[in-house]
C-alpha cells in the first residue's frame, strides 16, 4: 500500500484525480465527442467555481472566519456585471470585437471593484467584531447574506435577469463532431490566469509569504513583528473581488440569473473549499476541477444525481483525507 502511494505521489499524487475521473467518465460515456464537450464544460465550470472558492478558502484558512455571506459577493458580482453589460448593450452585442472586449472588461472590472469595496465594508463592519467566535460568525454572516439577497431583490427585482453575452464570446468552435462553446474556453482561460496570478502572489512575494505563514500560525507571524490584522483586510477584499468576478463569469455562463444564484453556488463553493483543504489555492483549484467535472459527467449519465454526486465526492475525500486533498497547514 505504501509503495503504491509513493509511486502515485511520484507521478503527481492527488493532482491526478481529475485525470482519473475524466478517464473513468470516458469509459462510461463511450462517445469521445460527447466526452470532450462535457470535459470542457466541466473544466470551465470548475474554473468559475475556483474563482468563487479561492477567496473563501484563504479567508477560512488565514482568518479562521466562517463567512456564509461569501456568496453575497457572487450574487452582487453577477448582477453588477449584468447591469454593465446591459448598459453597454450597443458595444456588447455589436459586430465590433474591440468594443465587445471593452464591454466585457468593463463588466468584470465593475464586479471586481464592487467586490473590493463591499469586501472592505463587510470585513470592517460585520466580521471584525466577531473574530474568534464561530457561532456569532455563522449567525451574523448568514444574516448578512439574507440582507444582501433582499437588497438584490429591491434593486433588480424578483424576476430572472437576462445577461447579454458579448458577441465575441457567443457561438461555438466546431472540430469534427465536437462542439465547444467559446464562452467556456474564455471562462477556463480567465480562471487559469487568476490561478497563475494568485500562485505567483502567494509564492513569490513577501505579502504572499506572510499570508501562507498566517494561514498556519497567525500568532507566530505577529511574534515575528508583523500586523496580521492589516493583512486580513487585504485578503478579505481580494477574496470578495474574486468571488464577484466568479459571479460575473457565471452570469455570462447562465445568461439568466436570479437573486438566489449566490445561495445555490454556495453549496458547491463550500464543497470545493472542504475537498481542497483550508487556505490552499492549489487545493481550491483541484477541488473546483473535480466538482466541475463530476457535476457535468453525472448530469449527463444520471441527471438527478448531479448535486448528490458532489456530496458523495466530498464525503469520500473526507473519509480518505480528513483535512482535504491539499491543505495549507502541514503538521
Amino acid at each position, binding site marked *: 500500500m505504501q509503495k503504491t502511494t509513493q509511486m502515485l505521489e511520484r507521478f503527481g499524487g492527488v493532482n491526478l484525480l481529475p485525470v482519473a475521473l475524466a478517464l473513468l467518465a470516458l469509459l462510461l460515456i463511450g462517445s469521445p465527442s460527447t466526452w470532450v464537450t462535457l470535459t470542457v464544460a466541466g473544466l470551465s465550470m470548475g474554473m468559475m467555481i475556483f474563482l468563487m472558492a479561492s477567496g473563501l478558502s484563504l479567508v477560512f484558512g488565514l482568518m479562521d472566519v466562517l463567512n456564509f455571506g461569501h456568496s453575497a459577493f457572487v450574487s452582487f458580482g453577477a448582477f453588477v456585471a449584468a447591469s454593465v453589460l446591459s448598459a453597454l448593450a450597443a458595444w456588447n452585442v455589436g459586430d465590433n470585437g474591440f468594443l465587445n472586449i471593452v464591454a466585457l472588461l468593463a463588466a468584470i472590472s465593475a464586479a471586481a471593484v464592487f467586490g473590493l469595496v463591499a469586501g472592505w465594508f463587510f470585513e470592517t463592519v460585520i466580521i471584525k467584531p466577531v473574530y474568534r467566535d464561530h457561532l456569532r460568525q455563522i449567525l451574523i454572516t448568514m444574516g448578512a447574506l439574507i440582507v444582501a439577497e433582499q437588497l438584490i431583490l429591491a434593486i433588480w427585482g424578483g424576476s430572472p435577469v437576462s445577461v447579454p453575452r458579448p458577441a465575441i464570446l457567443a457561438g461555438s468552435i466546431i472540430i469534427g463532431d465536437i462542439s465547444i462553446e467559446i464562452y467556456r474556453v474564455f471562462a477556463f482561460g480567465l480562471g487559469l490566469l487568476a490561478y497563475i496570478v494568485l500562485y505567483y502572489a502567494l509564492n513569490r512575494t*513577501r505579502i504572499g*509569504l*506572510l499570508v*501562507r*505563514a498566517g*494561514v*498556519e*500560525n497567525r*500568532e*507566530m*507571524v*505577529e*511574534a*515575528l*513583528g*508583523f*500586523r*496580521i490584522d492589516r493583512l486580513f483586510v487585504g485578503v478579505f477584499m481580494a477574496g470578495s473581488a474574486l468571488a464577484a468576478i466568479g459571479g460575473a463569469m457565471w452570469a455570462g455562463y447562465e445568461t439568466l440569473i436570479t437573486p438566489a444564484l449566490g445561495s445555490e453556488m454556495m453549496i458547491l463553493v463550500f464543497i470545493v473549499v472542504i475537498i481542497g483543504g483550508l487556505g490552499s489555492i492549489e487545493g481550491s483549484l483541484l477541488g473546483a476541477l473535480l466538482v466541475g467535472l463530476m457535476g457535468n459527467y453525472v448530469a449527463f449519465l444520471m441527471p438527478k444525481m448531479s448535486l448528490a454526486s458532489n456530496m458523495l465526492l466530498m464525503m469520500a475525500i473526507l473519509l480518505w483525507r480528513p483535512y482535504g486533498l491539499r491543505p*495549507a*497547514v*502541514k*503538521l
Partner: protein
Amino acid sequence: MSDTILSLEDVHTDIGQYHILHGISLQVPKGGVHVLLGRNGAGKTTTLRTIMGLWQARKGVIRFADADITGMHTSEIARLGIAYVPENMGIFGGLTVQENMRLATSNGRFDDQRLQHVFALFPAIEQFWSKAAWSLSGGQKQMLAISRAIIEPRRMILIDEPTKGLAPAIIRNMIDMFREVARDTTILLVEQNFLFARSLGRGVAVIEDGKIVHHGTMQALAADQGLQTRLLSLSLDAHQ
C-alpha cells in the same frame, strides 16, 4: 542607565475565567542566560506570553529597556528587538526552511555574515535550506526556531522549554549553542530540565502558582540541594 533589560512589576494575567499570574515581579539583567524554573502549570509559559503581548496583563507593568510595553501589540514588542521561541517552536510547516528564516528578517533580505554564522551553529539549516519545514525532525525544527530568533541581532530572546522531547545528545549540543548565542544577547529561558538550566543559567527565578517564590543566582541554587527540593521537588543527584 539601568543594568536591567526586562522587568515585570506585580503582573497579573487571566486566561478566560482563570487567574494564572498572581502578581509576578521579576528583573532580568542584561546579557547571559536567565532561567525561569517551575513545575508544570506554575505559570512559566504564561509569563513569556504575557511579556510578548500574546496574552494581555490585567494589572501590573512590564518594561523592556526602560520602555513600558504593557498592552503593546505583539508585533510592536517584537520590533523592539525581542524574539520569541514558543514551546511548540512555531515553525511554519508548509514553508521551506529558507522561507521560515526569511520571515524572521525585517526587510526580507539576509545579512550574509549573519547567515553564515547561523549555518556554522546549525549545519542542518543549510543542509535542509530548500526543504519543507514539516519534513524536519524534532531537533532540527528546534534548531530552525532558534535560528529564526538569531538571524538578526536581537536584544532579548524568550525561549520556552527548548529541550522538551529532544534526545540527550541534541541537548548537549544545544548547551554550547546557547552559550554562543548569549554572548550577543540576553536569553530568558523557561525550562523544566534542571541540568540543562544549571549548565547555562546565570540568574534563576522559580515560579509557583503564578508567583515568583525564589530569585537569585543559579550557582547558589545548584549548590543548595535543600532549596532545590523545597522549590522544585528535585535534587541534582536524582537527575544524574
